């Protein structure tokens, strides 16, 4: 999945209005569409609401009262901070690795045609097409087989594996829309390969690269399915959260962490979206 806005355009880049004034949507379609959209957002509202509830025993609705108390409690918990720090470090490193590997792949795959191309595409999407549990258990068997101590580095390795394709998808989509004549024009005017990359290709793919990196960060920060297999004794924030679900002692703190996780993943996603959009509008 990537953040590629697909505004329908005609050949000249003018937006085509697909709405047809003559054919109005039936009531069913309209109600279903908006109900579906609302359905998508229901959990967000619930999470935000429950972070402020005074009720610390049940999931009762409506909440008996609202308070900011649980934020104080959560902020004082060192185990949460430790998990948060680990998750941020993992996400940062996995993002860096996948940016490098993903953009190298995109640069190789965007222009040239070669026989192995389809197999490489297949290899890239495999970590997304196969269920996370397969990736997780496969990495675990490899870790055990190679007698590596699972920990920070194994988490990063696992995350990088499926983040590469996120960056790749974003960057390759942008590079494919880059007219070959721009690169030819640059070389024609005396720029060698490095200069052409520095002055033409990099500025053109920068926003896509950043957007892909943001999404990779969000995905890594939040990942649980693979991480549970590769983490060993380390506890990332999602693992902390997951364990908390089965020990409902501090239910209100869990609610607060849920909001925090949501916000931390939301920011890079929003940034990625606005980056993609502004780049699309400029071109």
């Amino acid at each position, binding site marked *: 999945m990537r953040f590629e806005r697909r505004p329908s355009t005609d050949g000249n880049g003018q937006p085509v209005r697909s709405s047809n004034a003559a054919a109005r949507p039936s009531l069913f379609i309209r109600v279903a569409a908006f109900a579906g959209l609302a359905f998508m957002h229901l959990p967000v509202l619930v999470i935000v609401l429950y972070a402020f509830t005074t009720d610390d025993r049940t999931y009762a609705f409506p909440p008996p009262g609202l308070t900011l108390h649980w934020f104080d409690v959560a902020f004082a918990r060192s185990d949460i901070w430790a998990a948060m720090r680990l998750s941020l470090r993992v996400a940062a490193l996995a993002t860096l690795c996948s940016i490098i590997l993903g953009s190298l792949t995109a640069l190789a795959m965007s222009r040239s045609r070669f026989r192995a191309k389809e197999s490489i595409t297949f290899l890239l999407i495999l970590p997304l097409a196969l269920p996370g549990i397969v990736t997780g258990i496969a990495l675990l068997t490899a870790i055990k087989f190679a007698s590596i101590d699972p920990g920070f580095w194994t988490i990063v390795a696992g995350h990088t594996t499926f983040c590469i394709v996120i960056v790749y998808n974003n960057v390759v989509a942008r590079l494919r829309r880059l007219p070959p*004549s*721009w690169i*030819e024009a*640059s*070389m*024609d*005017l*005396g720029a060698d390969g490095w200069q052409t990359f520095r002055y033409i290709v990099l500025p053109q793919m920068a926003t896509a690269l950043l957007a892909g990196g943001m999404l990779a960060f969000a995905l890594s920060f939040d990942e649980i399915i693979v991480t549970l297999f590769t983490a060993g004794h380390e506890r990332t924030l999602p693992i902390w959260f997951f364990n908390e679900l089965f020990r409902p002692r501090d239910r209100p703190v869990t609610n607060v962490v849920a909001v925090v996780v949501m916000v931390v993943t939301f920011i890079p996603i929003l940034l990625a979206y606005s980056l993609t959009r502004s780049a699309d509008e400029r071109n």
Partner: protein
Amino acid sequence: MTTAIEFRDVTKCYGNVRAVDGVRLQIEAGEFFAMLGPSGSGKTTCLRLIAGFEAPDSGQILLDDNAVTALPPYERDVNTVFQDYALFPHMTVLENVAYGLRVRKVSRAEQQRRALEMLALVKLDAMAPRRPHQLSGGQRQRVSLARALINQPRVLLLDEPLGALDLKLREEMQIELKNLQRRLGITFVFVTHDQGEALSMADRIAVFDRGRIEQLDTPRGLYTRPNTAFVAKFVGGANVIEGALAQRLAGGASHDAPAFAVRAENILLGDVRNSAATDVMRCEGTIVDVQYHGAASRYQVRLSSGELLTAAAPDSIHQAHWRVDSAVSLSWSRDAVMPLQAAAASNST
């Protein structure tokens, strides 16, 4: 004169298609040279081979008598005006024009000064701070021209540079390009599928078909003495007459060539009963279509032997107005007959 560009038996294939097939060619320094042909004839590939975007499969390319076959584009003293202009959207007009200097590490002040000079040359210095998407098609075209000229190349390559412009602008740009070339004295190599454009601008024209040069000549030479049926048809749309009809009309006496071409404007339409002079070729047929073109009308005539010929006649009031289904006679002077090479003529139909 010295040779600016030379092709020595250059061949370039894409898969099984021979895009350029053993081309031999010399372009003189300071020449306005056109490569003319239908799409897929190999003319654009030739241009890309000169620029260095493609490498030939065999043969050699020389610029100023130096082999450049193995050099990348940035080591060749040629610059290109692209069909889609290829202006960099993330740079201003000025930055676009200065790009060739920037990658050569020319000082910033010098970049600015010379870029503005080039923009003045194409009368766009006022547009320097704009972005390419804020310009009209004609303006973009001129920016791309200024950008390509800033490195003072030995050769300027133009790939269908006027294709995207409307008719009026195209005519203006034709004159402007021609003037610019005369003033700068740079060799221009110009790719086009528009025979009118090639005829009116070029000093010499190479007509391409299926990866080969069919004929290389001056515009007048091409128009008045086409070598092959392809050139006769492609440049000016002449009638090609061959086979039995050619034998009969030539009478076996004055012409050995079994194929020749006649231009539509050299064919006289007349009543069938009119007897003819001895010094002309004559045949008869029925008008199947009339196209009005203002100054002249073009008549499609189906001969009794089946061939279709086109005659053009000025649309004056004295002229009888021939209609569809009228029976007419066609005649032309033997001076108007352009003999064609037999082999090429027969394989083109």
